[in-house]
């Protein structure tokens, strides 16, 4: 098993190496934290020993070449990993100090707190724009009576309100790709998550839409924690406060280093990080 431990100087984002007994350590850390997390698909060891901290109200970019386990990692953070048959994990993921994999935790409640936006814009096809935004409230049986306010608020935060306020009853599929993705963001916001995971949210979009979504992400970080997987180095440098660099040597993916975005792009500790962010491989 490969085990990487990083000694970080930056106290905001530190990788907490493997502790002898993670549960005994009382943490007052606010935000999301992983402790030596591993992931398997059947016998395939996909991710090894990732320990990271995502402080509240920050944007963290997960970067690295394809197949290094970024998407697997992000799906571990809201318990979507377990939907894949034969998937397994080890280690712990703490949200404000409590383990989301604790047997007493309801996975559905975890996903309510840790939302997710997918690579391809995917509004629900049979629903209107308004219904799409409110879909999560219905799905999770949340009691809310100010539906109109929620729709306006979420669409505004996702930067879509002005464009669609006159046609909330139109089908979500009638929007352009970039608008659809912002609708998906609005949909995630409606259930008031504390953390929003984004798995390459702009990879299917044109540059203009990409910029709109990046603005949205920065605004979101005033209230919630954002974790974004991206293959676009410029995007990572534009939107994120912190970056984490993943890599694989043919075996399981692992974390090379994590630090503030400025340091990662100007003076990283590991030469491989420097090569990757400068586009020398990957």
């Amino acid at each position, binding site marked *: 098993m490969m085990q990487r431990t990083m000694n970080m100087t930056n106290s905001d984002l530190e990788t907490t190496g493997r502790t002898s007994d993670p549960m005994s350590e009382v943490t007052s850390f606010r935000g999301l934290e992983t402790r030596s997390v591993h992931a398997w698909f059947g016998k395939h060891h996909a991710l090894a020993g990732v320990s990271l901290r995502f402080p509240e109200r920050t944007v963290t970019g997960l970067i690295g070449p394809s197949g290094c386990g970024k998407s697997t990692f992000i799906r571990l953070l*809201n318990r*979507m990993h377990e*939907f894949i*048959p034969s998937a397994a994990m080890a280690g712990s993921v703490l949200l404000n100090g409590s383990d989301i994999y604790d047997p007493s935790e309801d996975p*559905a*409640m975890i*996903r*309510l707190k840790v*939302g*997710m936006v*997918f*690579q*391809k814009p*995917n*509004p*629900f*096809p*049979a*629903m209107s724009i308004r219904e799409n935004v409110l*879909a*999560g409230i*219905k*799905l*999770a049986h949340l009691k809310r009576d100010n539906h109109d306010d929620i729709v306006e608020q979420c669409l505004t935060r996702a930067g879509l309100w002005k464009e669609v306020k006159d046609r909330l009853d139109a*089908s*979500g*599929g009638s929007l352009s790709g970039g608008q659809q993705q912002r609708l*998906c963001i609005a*949909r*995630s916001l409606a*259930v008031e998550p504390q953390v929003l995971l984004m798995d390459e949210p702009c990879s299917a979009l044109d540059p203009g839409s990409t910029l709109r979504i990046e603005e949205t992400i920065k605004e979101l970080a005033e209230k919630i924690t954002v974790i974004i997987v991206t293959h676009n180095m410029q995007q990572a440098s534009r939107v994120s406060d912190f970056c984490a660099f993943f890599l694989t040597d043919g075996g399981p993916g692992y974390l090379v280093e994590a630090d503030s975005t400025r340091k990662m792009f100007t003076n990283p500790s590991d030469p491989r990080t420097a090569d990757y962010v400068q586009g020398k491989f990957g």
Partner: protein
Amino acid sequence: MTTVETPAPREMTVIYSRADRVFRGIVTAGALTSLILLGLIASFLVYRSSGIFREFGLKFITGTEWFSDSFREVGDEARPDSSVFSIGPMIVGSVVVATIAMLIAVPLSIGGALYIEFYAPRSIYRVLVAMLDLAAAIPSLIFGLWGIEIFTAFGVRWATFLNDRLGFLPIFSVEFENFGRSPFVAGCVLASLVVPITTSVAREVYSRTPRDLIDTCYALGGSKWGAIRSVVMPYGRSGVIAGAMLGLGRALGETVAIYLMLNLVFKYSYQILDSTGGNVASMIALKFGEATDREISALIAAGLVLFIITLIVNMVASNIVQRTTPRS
């Protein structure tokens, strides 16, 4: 300043390779063959039945009497033919039995398809799918025999229960408490014949639901049932309707099972628990063996009516499928 003259659009030509031309010929021939066959069948039915429609007109469809004057052929050609042919109750019977079958089969199929696709353990998934396809291939004669020998005993109990509790409603009332050969019991057997096809199609459609739509439901804190209700079922709706129409086609045209299960009675009846009924297809099968020439023409006319009903059902179905297909 020179003005640019708008050029005439150039003609675009396509050069097909030899292989392309041969393949094109083969598929065109295949498509035309099925169309021509359909046309030939239709014209045969129209040609052979035109005399009957000329003689009986609309009465053929609405009337309630079927009498073949079969003695006339033996001797006295001088005596006028007193045959009367009409199939009103059989048409109603076809629709009633098929409706009962669909009301039972569609919910069962949707439930079964959702179970197999989303709840069945992986280890039995393949077995279930294989068994379903096998069941769809069992001849309806087997279902008919099973219906008479085994199912009727259960069906009668259900019918008795319905009559006992809901007998005040006209459709659940009876004239004689003999539920065995009733449209209700026949409809149940027909449903068991329809379920495998409809379930198979529904399962296939449900399995095509984009994975990330289902994942999105989970990511929003939804349960499995929530994902099924808000994504899987709306997404699969048009496909399930198409599958149900395949089943309805089988139910409307079903011959042998109904032939075994129902007494043919030429009387309009809306009492689905009463032992009267029949449908067009089984009537044709029943009468064909001993039919006179004129009666055969009448049976072919009945076949034409069934053909047209099936055609209308299919057109309505494809219309519904088109309108309910989600656009995205």
